[in-house]
């Protein structure tokens, strides 16, 4: 019930009581509240003309970094006695210094300017509304409006630096890079020996072999290193990433950001496919600009369940044949067929799997049944991962209680020689 309505009701009741009782003093009792109402009406805010302007110290920050927001609100109408200005913020943004609210008096033609500091979690935020409530001095009458401003903020996930990620797809691109190309030529690693040809460096001659064959001269060949196409697939299915109120999705996003950075730093062409409620595709590209594009995409992603597909569905037409695919997913046993299908089509597949079993168990109170259930599910998960390794898929199981860099250094930085399944 608004204050004006309450006071009106009280006044009416007193007047009615006075009239009913025929008591003048009862009628007189209604005067103070009637004067209150009249005073409020005389000063009621009308034709409120306000405008707002917003500036941000940065439009793109990493998760956990501060952003300074400066707001200027100008009164282009008559004097306003009591103005509550409130910058409406999304839930995931937090004010760490200053205030997003001001309670001020704004003279006609005057303005108020203030700065406060925000911090938030990963996300894309539109900051475009300042809510204004203008009250007359007694606070009985109020006028509210929303002032529109420009402002958007990308809070991108933190990018962990990985030195290298060892992959070995069948097909490479023509530009030189760091991925072994299964072809002889200039390089570092020994690849093959062939007959010496004009133009070969004398330093490449394999003297030991040449000594055994008096007719021919043999030269060493090295394995060419080139850039490759890498398609990163981030699994955002709610049923694989969320456990009650806890979600492992942020860990997946963090791992994806680190992998994207590592692949792009090595000169590769990288694209990102997000698979959640909808499919979101970031076209492949090279370099820092592509890194920014993918970080911006990552900042917007939210887990959700697809209405169309029950199982993992990866549209192959998006990825060049025999290229490298990296799936970041907690995985469920149902995903086996989708991954086996990719392998059968010649893709090199790397799976980075945040360990859902340990993550879910860490949120449960320790007890005998929980421990037993955890052991059983872990065994099933390990069997599933073993099946994946059996068809030539490189699997990194990541216990998210450990830093991703540490796991990646142990599991991904070693050079892949030959894997089962015909890599």
């Amino acid at each position, binding site marked *: *019930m*608004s*204050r*004006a*309505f*309450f006071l*009106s009701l*009280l*006044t*009416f009741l*007193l*007047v009615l*009581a006075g*009239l009913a*009782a025929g*008591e*003048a*003093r*009862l*009628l*007189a*009792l209604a*005067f*103070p*509240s*009637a*004067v*209150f*109402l*009249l*005073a*409020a*009406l005389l000063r*009621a*805010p*009308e034709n409120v003309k306000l405008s707002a302007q917003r500036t941000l110290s940065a439009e793109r920050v990493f998760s956990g970094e501060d952003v300074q927001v400066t707001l200027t609100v100008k009164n282009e109408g008559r004097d306003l*006695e*009591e103005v*509550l200005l*409130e910058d409406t913020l999304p839930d995931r943004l937090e004010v760490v210094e*200053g*205030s997003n*609210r*001001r*309670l*001020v*008096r704004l003279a006609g033609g005057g303005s108020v300017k*203030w700065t406060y500091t925000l911090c938030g979690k990963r996300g894309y935020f539109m900051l475009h509304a300042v809510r204004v409530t203008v*009250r007359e*001095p*007694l*606070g*009985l*009458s*109020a*006028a509210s409006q929303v002032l529109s401003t420009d402002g958007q903020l990308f809070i991108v996930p933190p990018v962990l630096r990985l030195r290298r990620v060892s992959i070995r797809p069948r097909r490479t691109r023509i530009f030189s890079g760091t991925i072994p190309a299964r072809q002889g030529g200039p390089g570092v690693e020994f690849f093959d020996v062939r007959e010496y040809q004009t133009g070969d460096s004398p330093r490449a001659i394999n003297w030991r072999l040449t000594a055994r064959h008096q007719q021919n001269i043999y030269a060493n060949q090295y394995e060419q290193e080139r850039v490759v196409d890498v398609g990163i697939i981030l699994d955002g299915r709610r049923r694989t990433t969320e456990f009650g109120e806890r979600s492992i999705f942020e860990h997946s996003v963090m791992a994806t950001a680190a992998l994207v950075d590592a692949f792009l730093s090595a000169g590769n062409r990288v694209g990102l496919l997000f698979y959640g409620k909808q499919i979101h595709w970031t076209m492949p590209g090279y370099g820092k600009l592509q890194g920014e594009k993918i970080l911006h995409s990552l900042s917007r992603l939210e887990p959700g369940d697809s209405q169309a597909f029950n199982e993992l569905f990866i549209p192959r037409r998006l990825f060049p044949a025999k290229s490298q695919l990296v799936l970041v997913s907690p995985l469920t046993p149902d995903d086996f067929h989708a991954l086996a299908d990719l392998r059968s089509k010649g893709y090199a597949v790397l799976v980075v799997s945040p360990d859902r079993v340990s993550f879910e168990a860490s949120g449960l109170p320790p007890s005998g049944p929980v421990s037993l259930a955890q052991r059983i599910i872990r065994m099933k998960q390990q069997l599933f991962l073993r099946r994946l390794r059996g068809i030539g898929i490189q699997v990194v199981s990541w216990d998210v209680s450990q830093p991703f860099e540490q796991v990646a250094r142990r599991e991904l930085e070693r050079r892949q020689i030959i894997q089962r399944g015909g890599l």
Partner: protein
Amino acid sequence: MTRFLAILFTLLGAGLVAAAFAVAGFILPAVLLFLFFVFWIFAFSRNWDWIHAPGLLLASGLAAFGLFLELESAYIFPGVFLSLAGWDLADFASRLRLASPEDDTRDLQRRHYLRLGLTLAIGVGLVLLAVNLQVRLPLGWMAALALLAAWGLGVLIKRLLQGN
């Protein structure tokens, strides 16, 4: 300061209304009012803003009942004025909670006190006029004036609520 004044005015207002009853020998309403305002202080300290309206309603209702019983109006009218001021200041205090540390709340408070004082002074003047000025009107005139007052009040309230 505003919170202190809100508590002071509300308690003085309720105390005066309770005193009017106590002086006339009606102890039960006085005790009930006293107990309610003990709870009101507790609720106010917990920032339960909904308590202010029932507080004013109770004080005004008992004041009206007291006038009907022809209790001492020297207690009743100041009691209602102070209760109204306390109700207004309690709400103003809750609005001031929304201010940031850099806001000039002193200026806002000064202006608010000025407006409140002026409004109450006009109210007091009108009440004094109404109590002391005795005009005998025929019944038809009285009915017409009552209807006019009700219509005026209705228009006033409608415009206020439309503004909100």
